[in-house]
């Protein structure tokens, strides 16, 4: 699967999509393929503060549990409730249906410091 060009990426395999003043966050195709079948997604509540490089939730796959690391600082304004009932969206549609949270960034310039699609591809490529 190709890596969407219009998103930014963190070293912990989260993607960030800028939408006006807000930022939508999820995990990458690469991350979901490393984790295997996702069976549960634990997300913060609306209003929660997320801190860059600190966990804001977790994803549980058939064999593991793995923390979700915030790519930026911000306040959660929306949470994807669909993942409660359909955690498999993370495997099927990591960049679309399985967005996890929308935040109001504390400092939008932090997003600029994240990796571009090319840089993320470089980091995860096997050949």
């Amino acid at each position, binding site marked *: 699967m190709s890596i969407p060009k219009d998103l930014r990426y963190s070293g912990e395999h989260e993607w960030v999509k800028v939408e006006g003043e807000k930022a939508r966050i999820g995990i990458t195709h690469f991350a979901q393929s490393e984790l295997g079948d996702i069976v549960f997604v634990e997300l913060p509540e609306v209003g929660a503060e997320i801190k860059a490089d600190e966990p804001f939730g977790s994803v549980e796959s058939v064999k*593991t549990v793995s923390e979700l690391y915030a790519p930026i600082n911000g306040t959660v304004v929306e949470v994807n409730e669909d993942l409660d009932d359909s955690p498999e969206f993370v495997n099927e549609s990591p960049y679309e249906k399985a967005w996890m949270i929308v935040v109001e960034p504390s400092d939008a310039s932090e997003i600029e410091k994240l990796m571009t699609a090319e840089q993320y591809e470089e980091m995860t490529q096997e050949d």
Partner: protein
Amino acid sequence: MAKKDEHLRKPEWLKIKLNTNENYTGLKKLMRENNLHTVCEEAKCPNIHECWAVRRTATFMILGSVCTRACRFCAVKTGLPTELDLQEPERVADSVALMNLKHAVITAVARDDQKDGGAGIFAETVRAIRRKSPFTTIEVLPSDMGGNYDNLKTLMDTRPDILNHNIETVRRLTPRVRARATYDRSLEFLRRAKEMQPDIPTKSSIMIGLGETKEEIIEVMDDLLANNVDIMAIGQYLQPTKKHLKVQKYYHPDEFAELKEIAMQKGFSHCEAGPLVRSSYHADEQVNEASKKRQAQA
């Protein structure tokens, strides 16, 4: 909300970190370029990020990537096997040398389609590693090779540093968990390996969390010891995909510690037990004194 409650949540102690540093991507590249398979990837092992990125170890899986058996705990692909690859031993040996492994673990899919169960290529792989990396210790982890002891002898004649064969689960659950393999045949396989080469440590592992009782786990310990097995590993069963057997229980690390203590009291020379312990986890530490001398020169 009811849906959430149906699902047995994984406990905190099964948390892992995706570590995809350059060691990790480098090993992936090495495996793809050399057309090699690892049980780490095929079994979706939760330790892969620790082993590949930090410890730089891997367990090679030879004789192809398709298994002739379909055990209900195992994620390895099942179906019609591929043709045997006569170059595989050399490629595995080259990779062991390139990775500069102190301890190499070699497992294989079950090749019930082959008269020798794949023993010939398995043995050649051990010899090729010895030639190219004389100081690397080698652990072999075969299936029961169809219960053919000539095949086992072919493998034991190569003098691996550890013979590992997994009994996988307690006696009662064996028919439900394993395909074709039987509990007693695995015990016999282990006993015969020891008879063939008495100074080579033998090892066997079980997965727990499939619905067994503590008494049944202790019975496995007694059965393994009665068949002269030296090393035991006990780990938490984890369901590799939704189609596989469900986890019945997540054991607490304290329960693993207690099982380890019981195993050691009963007389195993080594027991590795813990939620994320797998058959070859920390295997490099389990070789005997003679083999340690070899490692020391590596």
